[in-house]
């Protein structure tokens, strides 16, 4: 951690610090006039993994995209309520979306490394794209550290110069995780990161998630009950009636949700009786 002595380096919080908590208060969301989320309250504890579970179309992904202002990229999208990062509303009109997004990273369902950049450059993309310059030794150090955190270093250390798109699917997804980690976000959002991966790659990504928890707050959307059980500390179960907006049926510690659910629908869902 000798990065602070580099004058040109403007990395957020280079010294060890606690990850931030993310709190959604009374969040509702619309696409045009169609309401997709109603009155969602959810506190995502700092440094822990929160899983959002529930059947397709219940608004989990929309909720996740609201958490780092990706929601507003869809034409006609609107919302109500607020999202507090360390107590500050990220939808504050004074804040720019890019400031929130730099602190709240995201990993998508389909791995999307930048095809025109090498593995090395993909990891640094967050810094390079936002115009931040780093000294060579610092950036090489950052690349290695990010790739190690994502559990990819050993596999790619000899071909950092090859295009990011030349890796296998599972490696690409871990590269995307490394890319998101390299900007040292407070929160990492993951939208079904394993849905396109084979079981082996899925296991690697899950290990990665467990190992980065503590450094960052992780929020993960998943359809896979076992995965939610394995990786998360907290769970929130979303549900939407036909044509109605989604809401949280039940939330709590993962073992409680899975072993002692209060609501019958939760019990049915986590036991695979619907969805």
């Amino acid at each position, binding site marked *: 951690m000798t990065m602070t002595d580099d004058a040109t380096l403007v990395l957020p919080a280079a010294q060890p610090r606690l990850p931030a908590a993310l709190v959604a208060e009374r969040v509702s969301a619309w696409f045009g006039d169609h309401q997709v989320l109603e009155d969602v309250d959810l506190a995502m504890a700092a440094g822990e993994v929160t899983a959002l579970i529930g059947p397709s179309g219940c608004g989990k992904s929309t909720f996740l995209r609201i958490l780092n202002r990706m929601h507003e990229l869809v034409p006609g999208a609107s919302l109500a309520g607020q999202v507090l990062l360390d107590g500050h509303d990220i939808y504050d009109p004074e804040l720019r979306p*890019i400031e929130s*997004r*730099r602190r709240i990273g995201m990993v998508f369902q389909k791995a*999307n490394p930048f095809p*025109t950049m090498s593995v090395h450059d993909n990891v640094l993309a967050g810094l390079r794209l936002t115009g931040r310059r780093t000294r060579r030794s610092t950036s090489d150090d950052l690349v290695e550290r990010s790739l190690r955190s994502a559990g990819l270093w050993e596999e790619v250390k000899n071909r950092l110069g*090859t295009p990011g*798109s030349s890796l296998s699917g599972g490696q690409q997804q871990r590269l995307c995780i490394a890319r998101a980690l390299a900007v040292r976000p407070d929160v990492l959002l993951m939208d079904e990161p394993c849905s396109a991966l084979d079981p082996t790659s899925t296991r690697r990504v899950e290990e990665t998630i467990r190992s980065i928890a503590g450094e960052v707050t992780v929020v993960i959307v998943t359809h896979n009950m076992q995965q939610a059980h394995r990786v998360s500390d907290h769970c929130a179960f979303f549900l939407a009636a036909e044509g109605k907006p989604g809401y949280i049926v039940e939330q709590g510690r993962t073992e409680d949700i899975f072993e002692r659910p209060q609501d019958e629908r939760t019990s049915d869902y986590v036991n695979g009786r619907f969805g």
Partner: protein
Amino acid sequence: MAATAPRKVKVGGVSTELVLHVGSAAFGALALVWLMYQQLLPITGTIGFWLSWYAVFLVLLAAASATTLDRIAVVDRIVGALVTTAGAILVACLAGIVVFTAVRGWTALKHVNFYHDTTAYIGPDASLDQGGIWAAMVGTLEQVAISMIASVPLGIATAVYLSEVRGRLARVVRTVVEAMSAVPTIVAGLFIYSMLILKFGQERSGFAASLALCVSMIPVVVTTAEVVLRLVPGGLREASLALGTTQWQTVRRVVLPTARSGLVTAVLLGVARVIGETSPVLLVAGSTSELNYDAFHGPQVSLPLFVFNEMRLPLDQAIARAFGAAVVLLVLVVVLFGLARVIGGKPPGHLSRRQQRRLAVTAGLAPAPNAVNVGSLEGDMS
């Protein structure tokens, strides 16, 4: 139980029956029409002969097919013959034009002076070992270069507006660009003539010609570039924005590099479109046969204009020169077009081997020992 090797059933293909029917109809028609031309009709003429042959051929083919097929299948076969003929006509037209131009141009093309000389100080009836198209090539090069400098940035910026910014004006702009691609080129020339030369009193020059070409080039660049920008996966934009970049950074560092090969194609197609334009240049480039390197002052000839001027002279040498220059023009168009195909045929974000090597170098990494088989990893790309 030992199974015999399975034999594949042949599907499709051409049946013997079809060959028999088509062959007999063709031959029968030939005989009949020949008889008609020799005995019944007073005139000759190759095209008339083959037109009659074709009509008789269709009738005979229908008759022959009716011996084995029902009415619907006969109709199907006749339509098939007609449609195939239309395809053949199209190919024959292009082939005819290319071969005819090449053959007629050969007499001029085989003289070396044709490529580096000009027709400035020789009479139009001078033999083909004097004079050439050098001045016209210089003019074409400069005029196309100037119109590229003007229309490529404008065209790509407009395409970025249409596909990335998607403002309220996008619909209007798209409609207008479409209309612009339909503006007759002579009108484009007339526009520059009335504005630059009549209104602002400029002289006729290569520069004026370049501006007239821009009117044709901009819409080609805009429409093609918009299509290729739309091919860039939305996921890449989102990934970039989620890293906290501004929209400009996303466009500049992610979208445009990913669409690079497609954008090159857009430019090449634009150039191919305008390089042979005659009518706009005709009005504003002025008339000269002298070599003029200065596109901004004085008349400047270009390849299409050279062809146009020479072909109107009632002299064999001049016409041969016109055909020679036309072949050069045709070759340029085909080369540009081929390049556009080769470059544009790749998916967005595809990197050539050379680009991959450069990537490794800019990453500050000596190519790793196993970097040689980078190509074999391309299979993972999808």
